[in-house]
């Protein structure tokens, strides 16, 4: 994993205001979000943001401390590193036939029509990125990336709300 990139998991109130405050704090403190996911949690009224941004340990620490000051934020955790498993997803549309693509690539075919195929790649970031580069030779029409989705490796370390 890219060591100069950090991931934070933020549990926050499920409201449009909370979203604005959270992203506002990141922008004002000079963090450039490279990825973000927003999802419901098991607890009604609480959502999880996963934020990805370039920076070192110090930057992550600063982001954590500043996010903790946001009143709607319930919990912030640095989820970068070995103790966490993360997944990325990409949807790739290519001008080819599904059978043209080597089976060794970990791709799922979602849809196929006369002149294009929609693939899904998922896995760690390297896997997803290598799928995308491998598909380049087949003529990528469009690609959309999502993630990361991060879980701690050890069960029970998932932060309670």
């Amino acid at each position, binding site marked *: 994993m890219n060591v100069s990139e950090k991931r934070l998991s933020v549990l926050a109130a499920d409201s449009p*205001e909370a979203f*604005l405050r959270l992203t506002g704090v990141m922008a*004002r403190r000079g963090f450039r979000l490279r990825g973000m996911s927003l999802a419901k949690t098991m607890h009604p009224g609480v959502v999880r943001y996963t934020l990805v941004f370039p920076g070192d340990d110090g930057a992550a*620490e*600063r982001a954590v401390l*500043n996010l903790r000051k946001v*009143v709607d934020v319930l919990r912030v955790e640095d989820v970068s590193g070995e103790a966490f498993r993360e997944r990325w997803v990409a949807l790739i549309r290519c001008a080819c036939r599904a059978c043209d693509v080597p089976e060794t690539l970990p791709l799922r075919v979602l849809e196929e029509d006369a002149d294009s195929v929609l693939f899904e790649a998922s896995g760690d970031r390297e896997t997803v990125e290598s799928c995308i580069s491998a598909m380049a030779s087949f003529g990528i029409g469009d690609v959309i990336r999502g993630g990361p989705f991060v879980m701690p490796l050890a069960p029970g370390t998932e932060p309670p709300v």
Partner: protein
Amino acid sequence: MRMTGAEMVVRLLEANGATHVFGIPGGSVIPLYDAFSDARFTHLLMRHEQAAVHAADGFARVSGRPGVCVCTAGPGFTNCLTGLATAFADSVPLVLVCGQVATSLIGTDAFQEADVFGGSLSVVKHSFMVRDLAGLARTFRSAFGIAGEGRPGPVLIEIPVDLQREVGDLPSGTTDGECPVRVSGRGGATPELREALRLLDAAERPMFLAGGGVMISRASEALLSCAERFQAPVATTLLGKGSFPGSHPLSLGMAGMHGTPQANLALSEADVILAVGTRFSDRTTGNTGFFGKAAAVIHIDIDASEIGKVVAPSLGIVADAGDALRFLNECPGRRRDPSWVARTREWRARYAAPGMMQGGFHPGDIVRRIRNAFDDVVPLVADVGQNQMWAAQHWSAEHPGTFLTSGGLGTMGYALPAAVGASFAAGLSPVVCVAGDGGFLMNVQELDTCVRYAVPIRIFILNNGCLGMVRQWQELFRDGRYSQTVTGSPCDYVRLAGAFGIPGFSCSSLEGLDSVLSEVASVEGPVLVECRIAQEENVFPMVPPGGALGDFLFRAGDA
């Protein structure tokens, strides 16, 4: 109890301790203003919403309680932004109740609709959009709680006008129940505090740097006994002025860009610096590459995100200033060699002569004369610019809450309205306002407020006929190209005061000032004094931008 939303707001403001509310009415708060007629608090009509927020800010800084202000939607709100940003930058607790267009019109670009929530986002600690009456009591309780708790700040409550008219139930017992406020910081004997004690005990040349947080946490007494116990001289930041008595033998005065030589030299030579309740503004530290290089820096702040933000301390402690200082106080310590304190006193003696131009009507002398004409509990509110720095250098603040100024944001026009609020906070007692000619004109309309409420404000305008602080930088760093700073305005301040119904005086010598001061003493309501000073007067000492604190210019020509 059944009542309208507006009546609920009044009851909730009362329940949360509001005694004075500063504001200006408008279309979206007419129901609210209607309900003010039987409120137990006093509403004070200001002449600009920015001024209303500054007044609430001045009120809060003197009383230690959240200031309260009210404005209407749209332009009323946008006028408040500077006031909110000023309070946010200086961690001042206040609650702004802001009208909004009717719920059904939100998002339609209705008349006077502005994005209150979005607009306030970066200048408030938190904001609430009220969308029904059900949670109103909880909203107000949270707002006051958040404003005052931990590191204080401004909080906004936006209420659409239809909800002010709507009738609903206000549950009884509106002040009890849970408030979703988290307590940060912890007191007691943490390992970090023990380590701080060890460092201080081992120090040969310890000192304190006290910021505004000391006053917010009402820790001045603890600071005083701590300083005496460790025989540690105390420098303050601009906002920390008043946290330690300026006349105390251990007082070094203000540190930073225009700080005293003894404070800046001590910071350069101390071996342990205990910085408490300060965010290490660049105006305080000078070039951070050199700040506290000879020292172990201990940084105590209630806001964890301040630790290490600017200065990487040897020891960072997230704690309330008072809790931490009281802990340090209670532990036994060793006796200390007095030579370090003696050394700081030598510096003070060596640089005793104020570094100003020779001859004439010196701003430093002016400020000292004014200071001597008033009791030391009378607060000074300083505006922004050279006047602010002269006030900071020469007004010895003896008590917490007696020196007010916009430090973090540096908002010109702050002083006059903030002084109004400061006066109300102390039962309409006398307050001194020092402003430059430029900043004074930025909220000059508040003279009307001073007259209507007979505020015993003593306004001193240090009139140098220019935007002096910018002119000074142009002189020092732009080869004297005075681009848009020298105004030489012919404004007649005595007649200006007269037009508002305020006695006005003008003077251009210390003798003249003395006789004006004796007349001022017998004026009951507001009074304005213009002091005509030289345009060329500069603020010294000065650490040039980017310089180390020890490398100050002491007087003109040192560069």
